[in-house]
């Protein structure tokens, strides 16, 4: 039976996806203005994955992300001001301006970091799960990674150990078909059904439509509970697509415009809105209210970040050692 959301939960789901979308669009503008530097990887098009998966977690569960981490951080309700300040390298950023876009951290929210070495976050997630198991805590770790990371040895080593030790890890594979400019057909021996690898390690795995936030929730919730109750790791492959370049530096010459347009017709936000309207879960007036408030949140984040101070040069030497 397909999952149904009550009005409040549905509005919250819409709000989070919309916040991610507008926040990311604003990041692109701030990058063009030169206030955000370095690598900037946007999550536009993939919102349903983060929102569907993360809203199915408990507050004290851990999340481990990659460099495309703004969507995960916002879905986890990290302070948008602190995220934008981080992107602008300010001392008020969630990581004190030391991490930037690829390294958002907020331990108070169980957000254990964005990592920029492809696949490097998988063993970290397995280690966090080891600590949960060792200390008999009631938590799980949700670990996000891309289709590109599946080709790293890390993926295999981590799945093997997580399964061997029956650790509480929810692996979320965001298959957006590309690792930078390379289509999986050109990088993976099968090119599809990446989730089948999990079978080799005795890990239950499912492939879902990552453009459908309800499908993500519907799949994630029972799998998370299975893991939480000692069933060992699980893997979710979410088929998704980024509507924008890999990063702001993307030449954009490797994807067919028709392919992009085709995927845009599956926009996760429009799709969810259509569903909610048709089921009378919420109305156009509700949407208008949320849109206005989300725009304000993003404007406030930019203002907060711009007005924040750069870190003191002296602070550079702090927190290298305890």
């Amino acid at each position, binding site marked *: 039976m397909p999952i149904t959301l009550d009005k409040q939960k549905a509005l919250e789901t819409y709000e989070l996806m919309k916040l991610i979308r507008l926040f990311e669009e604003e990041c692109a503008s701030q990058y063009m203005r030169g206030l955000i530097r370095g690598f900037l990887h946007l999550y536009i098009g993939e919102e349903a994955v983060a929102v569907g998966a993360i809203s199915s977690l408990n507050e004290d569960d851990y999340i481990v992300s990659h460099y495309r981490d703004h969507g995960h951080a916002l879905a986890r309700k990290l302070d948008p001001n602190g995220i934008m300040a981080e992107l602008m390298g300010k001392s008020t950023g969630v990581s004190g301006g*030391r991490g930037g876009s690829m390294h958002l951290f907020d331990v108070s929210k169980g957000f254990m970091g964005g990592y920029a070495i492809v696949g490097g976050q998988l063993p970290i997630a397995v280690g*966090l799960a080891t600590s949960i198991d060792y200390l008999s805590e009631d938590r799980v770790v949700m670990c996000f990674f891309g289709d590109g990371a599946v080709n790293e040895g890390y993926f295999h080593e981590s799945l093997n150990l997580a399964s061997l030790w029956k650790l509480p890890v929810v692996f979320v594979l965001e298959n957006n078909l590309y690792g930078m400019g390379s289509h999986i057909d050109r990088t993976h021996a099968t090119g599809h059904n990446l989730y089948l690898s999990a079978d080799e390690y005795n890990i239950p795995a499912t492939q879902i439509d990552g453009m459908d936030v309800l499908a993500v929730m519907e799949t994630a919730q029972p799998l998370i509970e299975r893991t939480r109750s000692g069933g060992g790791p699980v893997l979710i492959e979410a088929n998704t697509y980024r509507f924008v370049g890999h990063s702001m530096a993307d030449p954009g010459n490797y994807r067919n415009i028709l392919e992009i347009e085709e995927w845009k017709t599956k926009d996760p936000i429009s799709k969810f809105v259509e569903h909610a309207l048709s089921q009378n879960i919420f109305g156009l007036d509700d949407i208008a209210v949320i849109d206005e408030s989300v725009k304000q949140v993003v404007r406030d984040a930019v203002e907060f970040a711009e007005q924040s101070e750069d870190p003191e040069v002296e602070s550079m030497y702090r927190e290298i050692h305890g």
Partner: protein
Amino acid sequence: MGKLTVRESISKGLYEAMDSNERCYLLGEDIGEYGGAYAVTKGFLDKYGEKRVRDMPIAESVIAGAAVGSAMGGLFPIVEIMTINFTLLAMDQIVNHAAKMRYMSNGQIQVPMILRTVTGGGGGLAATHSQNFEGWYANVPGLKVVTPSNPYDALGLMRSCIESKDPVIYVEHCLLYSVTGDVPEEYYNVPLGKSVVCREGQDVTIVTYGGMVSVCLEAADKLSEQGIEAEVIDLRSLRPLDIETSVKSVCKTGRAVVVEENWKTGGFGAEISSSLQENAFDYLESPIIRISGEEVPMPYSRKLESAAIPDASKVTITIKAMMEI
């Protein structure tokens, strides 16, 4: 005061870590049933059980990475990577993850962990199993690197590593495990970042660490018979590095020789030599000399291997020639 081997000292440190902290656990390849490739953790599995002594798949990346993650989650992992040669497969977790966590999270996360591993050549294990990469790790802010050369330091440094809130690479030399030495019964420790003068002399300073310490002490004894008194300094930690002790000595002797088993080009000895000339240039009577391993992949043949690793006679000959300048 009792006699212990280096192996026993390391084990003693590990027992103390395990007994004093329930959250401390060991992980590594063949550390449990097998007892450890160098038998350091023999008996641990029986005493502490499988929860706290974990035999790992041969998967160095996830061994190191799981240790990092579990430290982030509140545990105190002590990892054994069978030899430093295999840490190359774990290097990304050590350098890009363990060493960066506290910094990038602006202090929200700390990674207290010890990664024990085995360095050095001389055992006839040829090119891929005889290398000295501790200097590479010493290059990285966020890591600490210690290199005990005797049983006293092995235990004393281990105790300081246990107190440390940061990732430490604890580097054991493959030929030192059975070396014996005095170890006090009462508690002591050896602070990280403190080198030691292990032999006094006024004619020349030899700066070294790890497996080369005993080689240099042997050379110093030979030189003494010929009227040259060498001061030998054991660095003990490569990061944090105590260069002051060596500078002070060089100001006294006016001469410095840096001895390491590693290759010379870009090696850790270059760091020492450079720091000494920055700090003691006006006191030097002759150029600082580096004695290092030959720049070849380690050959297997005993004769070739011996020729590739610095020995006491090489140190003696070099210093005698230096004293004539």
